[in-house]
């Protein structure tokens, strides 16, 4: 079993790489973060007897993708599964961001995902599985996360249609729609700022990575982890979209203010200690 994973150097992608390695699959990992790619490769090779290729690639850069494809063809690789994990979220109100930050969301989450999916589909074995990572956010209109939620909605609908198109070619497409995933300390802070519901809608990383592969192999088409998240989704379908948008806006305003507030405070502390400004991050103090 050969698996291609994007966004593999951190967060969900890394957890998925661990899960695949544990199952004994051979994996090709790609990410733009070379240092962490090398580290995860070392970590996995120390534990599992599998083949791992790492390819550093910025999926939004056409030349990078061309080089990646050339490398795959040179190695004469064909794949049985593809996990589209790479994605970004520059959270915040539309007009509070630089345009590039907004544009990048669409470039990475939508354009780059389509491009790499197209190329890998041309290098597939039969049967083939694809996983797209959408989000619980794809189910709601989300003020203050408007572009992100819409980009995830794009993937949600696209995946569903693609699955139908390719059904007869024995390609099955699964869309994963997680709530929060506590992948690093910063995310934990953000979850904490959202209070009870933040924690309640957060999914367990170890469970999500395991079940996603299970469900993909079984031929499922969507996976919403967590009971509460499913309730939200069903409830949401009963309410008018305008009302949902208003409700969500009210909630985000509160939790973002709290989150920004705690972060700004620690930033303010940094400024108060003048020596910090010239500090080498990993140097002696």
């Amino acid at each position: 079993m050969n698996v291609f994973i994007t966004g593999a150097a951190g967060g969900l992608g890394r957890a998925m790489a661990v899960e695949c390695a544990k199952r004994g699959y051979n994996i090709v990992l790609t990410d733009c973060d070379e240092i962490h790619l090398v580290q995860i490769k070392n970590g996995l090779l120390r534990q599992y007897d599998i083949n791992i290729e790492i390819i550093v690639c910025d999926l939004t850069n056409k030349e990078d993708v061309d080089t990646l494809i050339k490398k795959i063809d040179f190695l004469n690789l064909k794949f049985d599964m593809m996990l589209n994990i790479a994605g970004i979220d520059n959270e915040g109100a539309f007009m509070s961001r630089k345009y590039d930050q907004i544009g990048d969301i669409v470039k990475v989450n939508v354009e780059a995902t389509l491009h790499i999916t197209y190329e890998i589909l041309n290098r597939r074995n039969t049967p083939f599985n694809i996983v797209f990572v959408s989000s619980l956010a794809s189910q709601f209109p989300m003020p203050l996360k408007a572009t992100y939620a819409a980009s995830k909605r794009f993937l949600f609908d696209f995946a569903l249609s693609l699955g139908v198109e390719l059904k007869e070619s024995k390609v099955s497409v699964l869309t994963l729609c997680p709530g929060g995933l506590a992948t690093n300390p910063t995310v934990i802070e953000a979850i904490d700022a959202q209070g009870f519901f933040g924690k309640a809608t957060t999914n367990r990383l170890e469970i999500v990575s395991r079940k996603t592969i299970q469900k993909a192999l079984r031929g499922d088409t969507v996976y919403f982890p967590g009971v509460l998240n499913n309730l939200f989704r069903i409830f949401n379908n009963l309410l008018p979209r305008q009302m949902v948008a208003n409700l969500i806006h009210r909630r985000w305003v509160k939790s973002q203010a709290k989150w920004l507030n705690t972060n700004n405070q620690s930033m303010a502390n940094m400024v108060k200690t003048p020596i910090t400004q010239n500090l080498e991050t990993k140097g002696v103090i």
Partner: protein
Amino acid sequence: MKNQTDKLVIVTGSTSGIGFAIVLKLLESGYSVIGVGSKAESCQNAKIKITAQNPTAPVVFYNANLANQQEIYALAHNIKEYLTLNPNLKLHCLINNAGGVRDWYMTTSEGYEYQFALNHLSGFLLTYLMVPLLKDGIVIFTASSSHKHTRIHWQDIMFQKWYFVLSAYKQSKLCNVMTVKELNKRGIKAFAVDPGLVKTDIGNKGMTGITRWFWNIHKKSGTDPEIPAQTYVYLCNRPKSLGLYYYNSKIASYNKEVDKDSETMRLFALSEKLCGISYKERISS
């Protein structure tokens, strides 16, 4: 105060809690100290707190995220450089105190479970890297009495099936005591210290909701960090002490699992593999 500033002690996780108290006690007893903290800002603050009282205190702080093995290598490099620049200093003791709890399953850069990597592997690897400098020096690990109520979960050592914060914590602390046992077999004098229940923020960092609330209540019945810090200084002053596991400067009893050679040797071998190192080669060279 005895003048023993030529004796250098390294304390990891030393910008708050028990680690910070250890640094203060060591300086009081006349040792030179290298502190290690995960955030540049907290290193800065710790240094300021100390030099405000005593501007010439022989202490420096290094900033390193010990959950990331590359940063452990960088730290070891910095320490070696520091010792080369200060040839009058001799490494007397390494205190592997850094540790933490995480509510959620998280992976490190190498794809290992976070608590296993931070609480166990980091000290394991740093000790290995310090072996050439230690000579007659000693190593101390911060363990916990909670290690007594568990065993090594060989079938799923990284808790990928179902992660529970306390199970992972207890196991990581058992790993500390087992490491101490195996290091002594290899001629490296090592101790484990049970600090008891201490009023620190360990249960507040990286935690959310109920667990944090529980810790806030639980820690009220704990001691101040100065109490356990005495045990560490006691061992630094008497590096030839005979025990393996200490509580309140006295030998205490530990988990019987630690006396099972098959268990400790298996853990040691696995840890070497996960760090990509071999103690045997280093000690013989």
